[in-house]
């Protein structure tokens, strides 16, 4: 790769907006320009923008379901195994009485589903992370602003034209985000 490729110096181009209004149609405009590696940062969730980004998948639901099933099997399994490995005669009840089993099975299933949902969300977002190049946006404040990002790795990314495209959308601020310098 030649050294003057823009993504050798830049991480992305960022355009800041005061609110979420119109961002979905801005994303459509950018797509018409040929950009594909787009992202939006914002202080709260907007399903309209997420849809425009095509950021829809159900993996969290599946991870949670997997967690629930895992927990149910683990909760049931430990009870069955314990009764088998250490049989206790409780008033002549059978070793594998089913009546007491659902409670712990359900409890562990719920706990495990929630833990899977949380950890699954973090890992699928590649968090926790101590730093990310997005934080290099000048005056970064994702708690007040919405940002449209075009990654430098995008085929159509160009240090001259891309900021113009973003300015034409009516952004309040437009900046090229430099890559953080690698520690030497």
């Amino acid at each position, binding site marked *: 790769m030649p050294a003057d490729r823009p993504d050798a110096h830049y991480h992305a181009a960022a355009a800041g907006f005061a609110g979420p209004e119109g961002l979905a149609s801005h994303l459509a405009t950018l797509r018409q320009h040929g950009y594909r590696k787009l992202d939006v940062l914002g*202080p709260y969730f907007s399903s309209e923008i997420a849809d425009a980004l095509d950021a829809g998948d159900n993996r969290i639901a599946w991870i949670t379901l997997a967690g629930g099933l895992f927990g149910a099997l683990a909760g049931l399994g*430990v009870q069955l195994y314990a009764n088998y490995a*250490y049989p206790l005669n409780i008033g002549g009840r059978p070793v594998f009485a089913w009546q007491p089993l659902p409670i712990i099975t359900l*409890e562990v299933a*719920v706990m495990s589903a*929630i*833990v899977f949902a*949380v950890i699954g969300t973090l890992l699928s*977002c590649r968090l926790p992370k101590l730093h990310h190049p997005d934080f290099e946006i000048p005056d970064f*404040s994702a708690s007040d602003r919405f940002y449209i990002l075009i990654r430098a790795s995008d085929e159509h990314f160009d240090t001259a034209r891309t900021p113009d495209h973003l300015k034409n959308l009516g952004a309040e601020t437009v900046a090229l985000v430099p890559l953080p310098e690698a520690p030497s």
Partner: protein
Amino acid sequence: MTEARPLSRERIDAVTDLPLGFPAPRAWALSFAFALLLLLCFAIAVTVLFWRGVGVFGNNIPVAWGFPIVNYIWFLGIGHAGTLISALLLLTGVTQRNALNRFAETMTLFAVVCAGLYPILHLGRPWLFYWTAPYPNTMGIWPQFKSPLSWDFFAVLTYLVASAAFWYVGAIPDFARLRDRAKSRLGQVCYGLAALGWRGSMRHWRRWEQAYRLCAGLAVTMVFIITAAYSLLLGGGPIPGWHSSIFPPYFLCGAVFSGFAVVAVIMAVLRRAFRLDDILTDAHSNLIGKLLLAVGLMTAYGYLADIFNALYSGEQSELETLHDRLSGAYAWSFWGAVICNFVPLQLLWLRRVRRNSLLLAAIGVSVAAGMWMERYMLIVTGLYRDHLVSSWGTFQASLWDWALFAGMIGVFLAPFLLFVRLLPIISGFELKKASEEARHAR
């Protein structure tokens, strides 16, 4: 919603920045000193308990479950309301939620910690509490899974883990917000670490939203399972006055009732202390008032059903227990519960009272006390006169029972006050979203 007035950006920033420029340091320090005093009381009571053994408590045969279980159920009940209020309002899309959820969930978290400590402390050898967990050991023994005690271990564990996870996931975007707005390096580093690198990408937000909703749905289910689990501790045995299939729903209503009451109290205190009249509005008081009234009436139905069951069963021992409750040695706890729970509650039929946060808080205090007496009544009157006259006895709480109870309130209060000081008590990003949406709807 009728009263969702959009707030200005500056106002939202001011509210979410409360931990960064704390407005009432002196009042907070005084409250925290009081909480630390209670915590000291806890330390002393626990030291005495460990040194001299569970004999320092008032419970003995036949009333083997005294304050530890009364307070355990009471604290756990308070916890349930935080989960239910937050999760149900999220799933039903009530906009007033965003001002209530964070402190209600925090209340849950610390109430569950208090609840979890009680059963451990009243074990004869508390340092061996982990024996209730199933783990492979050289002794080759396993817990007795047919016993409600082992269901209870999992109930508390599940509740603690799940409510902590739900709380933390909900708070991550707020930590990020504080990280971006903190002026001091220490604040930036601490909030930054807590935010786990959250940068608000819409792709992340979508997953976060899914996870948060799934957790809320699971948390509601969990509350039902857990009340069922610990009410069966009582219902599962042949004790007169306990052996009833109404216990799981009855406990659930009572739990949520006492919890909503505490939410009403905390809401009134926060509202006055931080001048949040535009955020914790009369509409919020109205909402909590209605919920409190509804759950209170369901609890009242539980009382009636319980009495009806005893009468309808025609069993001698059930009737005697009923008689003991209404006119026995501990009748004060029954009538105290009925009066504190249901008499001031009737004021909530009036819209004017519901919208007055201070009156609502006063009713909340009455209900919290009433529900404590109810737990006392349930435990003690069930046990002090058993089937056999030879095993009759009385229960009298000891000094150390009371000291531990006071100390346990410190265990609740001290971390809660730290939360008020260091973390956003109102969910900033949800407030912002609701406010922007309200502005657009106009």
